[in-house]
């Protein structure tokens, strides 16, 4: 088991290295650098001035050197002030060092956000915290509801309850966040006026009034999928011999479901819930933009829209890490929950 986890962690590190390199390459394409230079300098600058801005801020160094600097295996050089010829800070708002130092991801330095004029860490981690709160409430809503629907539907396959709940869960998987968000806002905010159509005020304090719509919107897309997986697994368990034996012993249907079927039926949904995280990530971006909630997704869109290289790299690193770590947890957890599975 331990060697399995170590091997998986090794693959994970390799994957992250490859992916960050790809992201680094795509972000640093020539058109993106041009746009960054234009947005960072004054209006109507000439092409030479743009070029000299890029050179001055170290964007014209070798690709691998810059990637190494970002990682923290190559020392970051201070830039040379063209006026005085002395070393100067690359971005004054980030307290960049004046002497060559190793300052990269390995040292815990995520770089400097050109859009927000602050360090990436000071933008990214509060945003992640805000998204964490959102995710917590989404899971609190999504997991119990979807498991309940799945179990109720799978308990008696082919019954009317099953068919109604199945069609309802198919409908919910057909409703992406930007569709359900609009529909919920129209119903609950515009017509009924019960809830707030914007979660911008949730940064100060979360209330039922401003936080329900984002949570609901994000949860609805996942509910259908998890419910269908739970149903499939429940249907399979209910046809097993030991369920029939328990029934024949004279146990009531309810206690058979709760005591015998449930435990075995919940193994598969566990994996599915873990693997939902990457999907939730896209949803988070949509919902945070739609409801103006200042979290991780909002930061990602701001970074991408403004060619904020270091911030976008930080966001990519976090999201790729989340995807990979949930995959690992789902594999290990599956082996723990199901003693029949032996990892080699």
């Amino acid at each position, binding site marked *: 088991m331990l060697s399995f986890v170590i091997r998986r962690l090794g693959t994970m590190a390799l*994957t992250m290295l490859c992916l960050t390199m790809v992201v680094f390459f795509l972000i640093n394409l020539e058109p993106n650098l041009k746009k960054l230079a234009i947005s960072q300098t004054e209006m109507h600058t000439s092409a030479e001035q743009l070029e000299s801005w890029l050179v001055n801020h170290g964007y014209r160094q070798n690709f691998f050197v810059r990637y190494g600097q970002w990682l923290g295996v190559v020392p970051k050089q201070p830039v040379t002030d063209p006026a005085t010829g002395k070393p100067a800070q690359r971005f004054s708002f980030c307290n960049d060092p004046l002497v060559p130092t190793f300052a990269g991801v390995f040292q815990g330095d995520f770089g400097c956000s050109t859009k927000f004029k602050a360090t990436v860490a000071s933008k990214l981690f509060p945003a992640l915290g805000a998204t964490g709160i959102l995710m917590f409430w989404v899971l609190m809503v999504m997991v119990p509801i979807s498991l309940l629907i799945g179990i109720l539907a799978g308990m008696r396959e082919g019954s009317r309850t099953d068919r109604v709940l199945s069609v309802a869960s198919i409908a919910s998987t057909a409703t992406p966040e930007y*569709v359900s968000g609009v529909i919920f806002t*129209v119903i609950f905010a515009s017509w009924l006026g019960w809830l707030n159509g914007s979660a911008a005020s949730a940064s100060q304090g979360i209330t039922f009034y401003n936080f329900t719509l984002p949570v609901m919107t994000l949860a609805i897309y996942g509910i259908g999928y998890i419910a269908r997986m739970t149903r499939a697994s429940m249907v399979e368990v209910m046809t097993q011999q030991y369920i029939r034996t328990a029934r024949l012993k004279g146990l009531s249907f309810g206690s058979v479901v709760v005591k015998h079927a449930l435990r075995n039926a919940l193994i598969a949904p566990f994996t599915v819930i873990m693997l939902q995280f990457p999907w939730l990530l*896209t949803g988070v971006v949509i919902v945070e933009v739609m409801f103006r909630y200042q979290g991780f997704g909002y930061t990602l869109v701001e970074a991408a829209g403004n060619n904020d290289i270091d911030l976008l790299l930080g*966001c990519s690193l976090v999201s790729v890490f989340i995807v*990979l770590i949930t995959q690992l947890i789902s594999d290990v957890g599956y082996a723990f929950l199901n003693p029949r599975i032996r990892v080699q």
Partner: protein
Amino acid sequence: MPVQYISGFTVVLEVLSRFWPVWIALVIVMGASFAYKKKLALYGQLFDSGVGIVGVGICLFWLFTAIFAATVSPFDPLAQIPIMKDVLPGAVEPKSGLTYLFGGDKLARDVFSRMVYGSQIVLIIAPAATGFALMVGITLGLPAGYYGGKIDTVLSFLANLVLAFPVILLFYLLVTPGIMDTPIPYGMAGVFFLFPIIFFSVLFWTRYKNRPDRLYILLGITLILGGWIYAGLVFDADPLKIVHIDPNQLNIFVAVVFASSPGVFRIVRGLVMDIKTRDYVAAAQTRGESPWYIMLWEILPNARGPLIVDACLRIGYTTILLGTLGYFGLGLAPESPDWGTAIKDASRLLRSFIHPALPPTIALMSFVLGLNLLADSLREQSMKD
């Protein structure tokens, strides 16, 4: 001059009557399918369950809407008639006497016509991108599952690499106006569009290599047709100027294929690993058939059930992806009538007007729902055999 309105009931009636070519086509196709359902194999079995009929009905409805869009929609989807800005549903346009059935949006365009034309964009890109993703996934998944070993390790690692990319990040990196200045999208298109040609060439070669009369005709058709479309799509150099794709559409197309082919790859690989242990594969190996013949003519036909179901779900998922792209304003032109862009435009103004938001959301939802219902009943029917 104030704009005249017609009543809600008349709006409903007129919407229904605008769809007249769709209804006629729907009745003909559904009626014919019902009459001959015994002879139509898997497709005919769909008509045994209510869920299947509803699924087929919704999908065909949007298909015919896309085909007859010019007849169904009363206005040009891009035309702006200033007096109709933000009008409510049922407003009569004074000059032509036609009605803005679902009202006008903030740029005074007809919401109904835009919804109808939006279906065209979705119904062209989504199935085509899914088709290419299937080709790529199958061509790579077959050897990975069949040979295993190093090929499998490398290909699976690459697939997992793409799958570990959050879709939204991938789009923000790959679908930008700036990237069109670089050769990356064309390079990727060049690679992806090669797969169907390779697939069909190998398909015919393995089957007919001992029958040159058939082989040369089929290979010739594949190479000429494939090469023609390839030249048109990748280099925009179709000599007859028929095959043509806008650069930003190509960009979207490539990004969508890139995002969804690893999923197909994983499914195909899993299916092949299961099927290759069957007796008929062992029999073919004993006969001395070549590996690619076994993969393409023994294994692939037996994996078609799950693949068809997956393709249906995947078209729906691609539709959602296209909507996401439109919602973030990536790739598609800002005035494009596709549903995602329409939802983006309307959702910003929900506080003042809600009517432009509802038609595209309901259209997108119903189309994806139809595909999901179709996939669900296909799965159920194929499980029965």
